């Protein structure tokens, strides 16, 4: 009884209505916004600006010269080759494992899900080391590879393998929760109505997971083009042959060719910006779908 009265008198006695009591005064709000903007400018905007400034400081022609340099073109080609292989393979893996986990019950499922996350926790440098040892002359496969004159380490296959490893979880971890949440009723309905497995996958499942799949592919792509530590160990840095774009940037920087380093960086920066725009767009689409559903 007394508490009720106190509560009541409190509500009348204070001049601030409830709305103000659960918000902050304007000066607090704007100083928080200001602090955040200063922090993000320092850490996000300035690095972006310095790359673009460095790339175009000496004009478009110098920038273009750095891009069409034979070693730069070779690095761009190699990075594209890596993407063309790595992204589809990990997308197929992601769909397959998400299908198995979301549509079926089996033992060890939780363990399997936690194994998928592991490549994220391992340092890229350790990833590179693991494969140098695995395929190296002391490793299990090394002697056999040497006998058949196959080169994996310090060659393109090694680069592709470490990047496959580094980007393995992206599509899978987007699709697993999504497909688990969607359940299997729609697929069961489609199959009962006479569609076969592939038809069901293409016409029922794929449209349902489309945005999650795009999201995972975009993230996988971003990581694959930028992978550095793992590639640094297995590539051997042979100019024009085993240098991906990030390695080429490192070589240029270490040779004090800063403008050229920033010019090649500007291409990757452009792709990074496209990545975050696509990501926001996919999230926006997904949100709207949820609201209309």
């Amino acid at each position, binding site marked *: 009884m007394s508490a009720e009265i106190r*509560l009541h008198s*409190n509500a009348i006695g204070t001049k601030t209505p409830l709305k103000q*009591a*659960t918000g902050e005064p304007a000066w607090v709000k704007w100083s*928080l*916004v200001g*602090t*955040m*903007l200063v922090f*993000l400018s320092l*850490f*996000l905007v*300035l690095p*972006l600006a*310095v*790359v673009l400034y460095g790339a175009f400081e000496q004009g478009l022609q110098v920038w273009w010269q750095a891009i069409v340099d034979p070693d730069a073109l070779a690095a761009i080609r190699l990075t594209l080759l890596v993407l063309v292989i790595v992204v589809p393979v990990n997308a197929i*893996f992601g769909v397959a*494992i998400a*299908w*198995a986990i979301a*549509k*079926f019950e*089996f*033992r060890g499922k939780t363990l399997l899900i*936690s*194994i998928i996350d592991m490549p994220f926790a*391992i*340092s*890229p*440098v*350790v990833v*590179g080391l*693991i494969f140098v*040892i*695995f395929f190296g002359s*002391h*490793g299990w496969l090394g002697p056999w590879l040497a006998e058949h004159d196959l080169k994996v380490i310090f060659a393109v296959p090694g680069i592709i393998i470490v990047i*496959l*490893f580094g980007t393995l979880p992206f599509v899978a971890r987007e699709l697993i929760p999504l497909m688990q949440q969607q359940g*299997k009723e729609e*697929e069961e309905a489609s*199959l009962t109505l006479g569609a076969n497995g592939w038809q069901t*996958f293409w016409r029922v499942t794929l449209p349902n997971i489309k945005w999650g799949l795009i999201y995972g592919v975009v*993230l996988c792509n971003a990581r694959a083009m*930028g*992978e*550095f*530590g793992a590639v*640094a*160990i297995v590539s051997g840095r042979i100019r024009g042959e085993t240098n991906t774009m990030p390695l080429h*940037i*490192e070589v240029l920087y270490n040779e004090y060719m*800063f403008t050229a380093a920033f010019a090649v960086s500007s291409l*990757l920066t452009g792709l*990074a*910006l496209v*990545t*975050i725009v696509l*990501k*926001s767009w996919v999230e926006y689409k997904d949100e709207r779908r949820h609201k209309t559903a």
Partner: protein
Amino acid sequence: MSQSVNRSVIPGFGITLGFSLLYLSLLFLLPVAGLFIFTAQMSWQDFWQAVSHPQVVASYKLSFMASFIGASINAVFGTLTAWVLVRYSFPGKKIVDALVDLPFALPTAVAGIALVTLYASTGWVGQYLDLFGIRVAYSEIGVVIALTYIGLPFVVRTVQPVLADFEKELEEASAALGASRLTTVRRVILPSILPALLTGYALAFARAVGEYGSVIFISGNMPFKTEITPLLIVAKAEQYDYNGAAAIGVVMLLAAFLLLVLINSLQWWASKRGGA
């Protein structure tokens, strides 16, 4: 396998699980096991010498301390950023929100050369810090800056959804019961975002410990001073000292697995809290 599988009309269990397990085994389990087996062939003495060499110990200290400081900076400013993005509206908010993911999208080597150019004594930021005698590039502070940069999105992205789902009624109740705004934030809001905050903190820390690309340019890589552990592994691998590299690699792998267990338990705690 189990009965429910046999009863299911959905096809593809064998092929999808079989392919996934084969792919994971060949690409992940077998090579990782290879590193452990390779290291197990070393004598204990050689192993211990490799992982406890003073230069290596100095690199652990730097890697863990700088990751700890970087993750702590992110815990404070990441929570602040998540709060501002969820609670307030201001012009350009959508752009700021999208930009938070930049450290995930920008290749680490690009981030590395951008940061060293900014913080060198002739750089846009470095020249002003130089006036106060603060050297960032080629010092421990540079390592902290790089590790803060790459861990930035984690805390924001883990805390943001929890804050967005937070029930305003709890705040109203707290205010109606006479709590000041600061007390409400401290005693009502902060405890409910704590599991997410700690998860983001641990993720940022784990990422920072293993980071290579964004650090090596700004750190200057001076032995005993600004040499991080991943750099030592690269250096040893480049000198074909695979024993030394593998021994340190195993230490880092074990640290990563421990952190992963910690992160999983934190996430489990967070989901339990969220469900309650």
